[in-house]
């Protein structure tokens, strides 16, 4: 039964163009931006003046390498995560789907699994590509390898973050059910809310900021814990996973309770 649901969800996701476009946008933006930033940093390496980027490359190289491209590129995965579920509502396909699978939780589970695997594969390819392209551009100035402490964990962590981010978006999409509203909400949670809360001074605001889904989640992509971080990389990732699991749970509960 679950096998059928998985192949069904795979057919759904591969048979619409939005999947291909979102993934292409993700790969192109992430690799393009990372390459651009690495090239600019490399070009300016020996010019006079302060070089905060060079300091970051020594203390926390993956933060710079991944931060550039995935900061923007991740939004394509957010959009895909949302529309994987909201497009069923906006097009009415949800009715067809639920007639075939009246037990709604297994359908949601199959959808989440299929999308997570797709997200994981796309993220793994892109994260490793970004890592090797950026480090080879910078290799004449600094050697960054997977064998250095924290780098492998941060690289794998980047892939895990992008995978969970997709599921986080899917959950928001399932809660809100409208494409535009859900995309706006996810982008606000990922890009807008964290810097706003970060502006508020004080330790309480600092802790709230640290426990926000994506501010906690991105910590796993850092090579080493920074002094200002409230959480360690794995703690941060755990907090992000917890947010996502809770939201998926509420999403599943409402999916069963609400009229389709």
């Amino acid at each position, binding site marked *: 039964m679950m096998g059928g649901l998985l192949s069904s969800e795979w*057919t759904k996701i591969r*048979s*619409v163009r939005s999947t291909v476009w979102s993934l292409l946008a993700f790969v192109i933006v992430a690799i393009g931006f990372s390459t651009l930033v690495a090239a600019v940093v490399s070009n300016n390496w020996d010019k006079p003046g302060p070089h905060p980027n060079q300091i970051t490359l020594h203390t926390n190289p993956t933060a710079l390498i991944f931060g550039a491209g995935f900061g923007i590129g991740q939004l394509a995965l957010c959009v895909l995560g949302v529309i994987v579920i909201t497009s069923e509502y906006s*097009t009415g*396909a*949800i009715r*067809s789907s639920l007639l075939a699978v009246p037990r709604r939780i297994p359908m949601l589970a199959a959808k989440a699994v299929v999308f997570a695997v797709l997200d994981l594969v796309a993220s793994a390819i892109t994260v490793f590509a970004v890592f090797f392209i950026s480090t080879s551009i910078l290799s004449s100035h600094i050697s960054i390898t997977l064998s250095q402490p924290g780098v492998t964990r941060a690289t794998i962590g980047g892939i895990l973050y992008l995978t969970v981010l997709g599921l986080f978006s899917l959950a928001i999409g399932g809660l809100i059910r409208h494409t535009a509203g859900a995309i706006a909400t996810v982008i606000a949670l990922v890009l807008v809310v964290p810097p706003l809360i970060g502006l508020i001074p004080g330790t309480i605001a600092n802790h709230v900021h640290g426990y926000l889904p994506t501010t906690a989640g991105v910590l796993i992509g850092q090579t080493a814990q920074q002094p200002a971080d409230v959480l360690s990389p794995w703690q941060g990732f755990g907090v992000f996973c917890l947010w996502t699991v809770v939201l998926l749970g509420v999403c599943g509960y409402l999916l069963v309770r609400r009229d389709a």
Partner: protein
Amino acid sequence: MLWPVAEAPGLIEARELTKRYGDKVAVDHLTFTVEPGRVTGFLGPNGAGKSTTMRLICGLDRPNSGTATIGGLAYAQLSKPLDTVGALLEARSVHPGRSARNHLLYLAQTQGIPPKRVDEVLDLVGLKDVARKRAGGFSLGMNQRLGIAAAMLGDPRVLLLDEPGNGLDPEGIRWVRNFMKTLAAEGRTVFVSSHLMSEMAVTADHLVVIGKGALIAESSTEEFIERSSERSVLVRTPDQARLRELVIDEGGAVKQDEDGAMIVTGLPAPRIGELAAGASLVLHELTPRLPSLEEAFMELTAGSVEYGETKAS
């Protein structure tokens, strides 16, 4: 019992089914039965709650109270629902970016229906040539055919069709009508909603009529028409004025037809004949008339029409 087993396969039963959306009662303690082996028409004015009832039967919406079962089981209890029930609810239930074939394929995969069956149903509804075209480019009629194809995927014994003729050309409507009759003749349950009374008169063997969400009538189509109180007699006579007086004296009522004939209500044809004979009046025609299904329907649902309700039900 490990798995609930259907005791009366093919029987659709609604018991005290009630659904409210906010303050508005869409379905009001609706109880009816739909039996296999015949086409059962589900009639009601727009906004009467037909589509909502269909959604409740299929488990898309949750009733506030009451139950709807298919073969004794709630829809959600069916292990492979498409093998038991085929439903065409709204034609726009397809992702416009997905091809017809992929739409049917993903539905088939949920129940382990082989892909070969997808091609069969596409052929059945005449969409073979556009199977790999995106559904967004389909006409309403083609979407309707795709919906029927989806309903037929599991070769189900129960079919729920909500306004299947919508958007179809006359040929398509005839096709659907014959299709439903064939399915019923094979012993399947066919439950079809329509606001087209004329269509139901030639398609349905049995009727469930609702208005404002409540049951108005449940009977065979013939009975439904006959039971209507508005039976009348068409009378042609050269001496209308005399006969009119006699009829009115006897307690009948007289209306004028468009082409000048008298329409008498409240008196049976033999009594009118006797009155005419008693007064030595010549009669050219004396014909008892059954009301059309349309008239019977309008009479029964008068007062239960939701004025201002524009949403197709």
